[in-house]
């Protein structure tokens, strides 16, 4: 009761003493958050259906099934939101394969490379692909030596299968909603003037908080940042080091592998900043 009373008092005080632009900023932040969730929704649902189908594939006795799922994840024509579906299935694959596929699919999916080419041209596209490979290879190496994976039990009956799908969907949407909140807050509070000449490290942090869609990060980079290294680091961090990807990895692979993936992505970002 006390906590609710304190919250009510705080809300009343905030409403009474709100700065003049506060409601405009709040409305814009709600619009930004809603737009992120609405835009991700079709991909998340498609990803969940793809995951349902890949679960059936995994339950069959086929030797290369996990490689097929990893290939499907990397070559999926949608945006990185669809990875929410594939992650559940990849959690049963070899850790190195899962880490490689998830990182590469996030940072260098066909759609994101096509938009990068349209926004920057061939050189930046090659740099992005190379850095994504570095991040994916580092993650694969790290995951093969870091803690056991948290596997999902086999979907052996119809009810459990349905429940798994629903849980996957809800968890994926929850992750998108959390990442959306971080992105809306980052956008509301980041001063636009400071972005243009941002250092690569700051660009990485901004990209990680903003967690834009993989088809949108090249356009944001070209519009907001001036330095080529910052642009590359921003794009990489937006996909490999971002809140959305970290939540996804945490849900399916646990804290240790999330930390390993973050460290590897940070290493790839540093390589991009030094050698690009």
């Amino acid at each position: 009761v006390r906590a609710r009373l304190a919250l009510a008092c705080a809300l009343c005080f905030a409403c009474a003493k709100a700065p003049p632009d506060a409601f405009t900023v709040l409305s814009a932040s709600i619009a930004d958050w809603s737009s992120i969730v609405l835009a991700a929704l079709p991909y998340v649902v498609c990803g969940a259906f793809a995951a349902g189908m890949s679960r059936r594939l995994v339950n069959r006795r086929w030797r290369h099934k996990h490689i097929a799922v990893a290939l499907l994840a990397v070559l999926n024509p949608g945006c990185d939101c669809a990875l929410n579906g594939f992650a559940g299935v990849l959690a049963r694959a070899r850790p190195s394969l899962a880490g490689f596929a998830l990182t590469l699919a996030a940072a260098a999916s066909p759609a994101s490379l096509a938009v990068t080419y349209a926004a920057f041209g061939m050189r930046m596209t090659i740099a992005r692909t190379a850095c994504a490979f570095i991040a994916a290879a580092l993650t694969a190496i790290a995951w093969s030596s870091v803690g056991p994976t948290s596997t999902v039990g086999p979907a052996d009956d119809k009810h459990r299968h349905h429940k798994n799908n629903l849980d996957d969907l809800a968890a994926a949407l929850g992750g998108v909603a959390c990442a959306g909140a971080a992105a809306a807050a980052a956008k509301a509070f980041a001063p636009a003037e400071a972005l243009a000449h941002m250092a690569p490290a700051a660009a990485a942090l901004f990209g990680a908080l903003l967690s834009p869609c993989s088809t949108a990060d090249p356009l944001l980079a070209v519009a907001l940042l001036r330095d080529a290294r910052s642009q590359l680091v921003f794009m990489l961090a937006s996909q490999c080091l971002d809140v959305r990807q970290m939540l996804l990895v945490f849900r399916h692979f646990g804290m240790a592998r999330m930390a390993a993936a973050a460290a590897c992505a940070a290493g790839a970002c540093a390589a991009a900043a030094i050698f690009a």
Partner: protein
Amino acid sequence: MSVGGALAFAGSAAIMAALDGAARTLTAAPPALTLCAGAALVLLSMRAIAWRAFALAVIAGACAGLWLPNAAPSGPRDVGVRAPRGHVAADLFEALDMLDDDPSAFNRRIISVSGTWTPANARRAATVSRRVMSCCAADAIDVGFDVAPRGGARVRPGAWVRVSGRLHVRLRAGDMRYEIDDAAVRTAPAP
């Protein structure tokens, strides 16, 4: 709220957002896609929870979806000068493309472009810009021109305008900016 309830809420909100136009304003995807995804969520959650909880979640989601058009995306903040490739046909984008190829393309010439009007404030000049949305409103970008209006423009922020004037290339804080000087600003019908 249970998993099924949360999904029913989200699905119902998405369906309403697709029907009331919020999805069209906030995302680049066709509203039909949002509608189908929302419908799939509602159908899936229907089997997972009791009818009463389901109905409550759907009604609450519909209310949230109906309210969404009231949440206005932020206006242009940092207007860029490079139009993304593969844009739609528009005078403003074409002018920026020509300037990108040759910054002296409009030297001493009158330029006329249309876009959204943002008045000047203490930190930046007035601008005429267009929004490019590749995914959603959160990662949309604005590109356009700085404007120095002739005799002060009395146009409300966010209005669709046609701006005509002489183009100058300026450096501001190390960035190249294109400014339309002595500009006539008139409201115009939105495309």
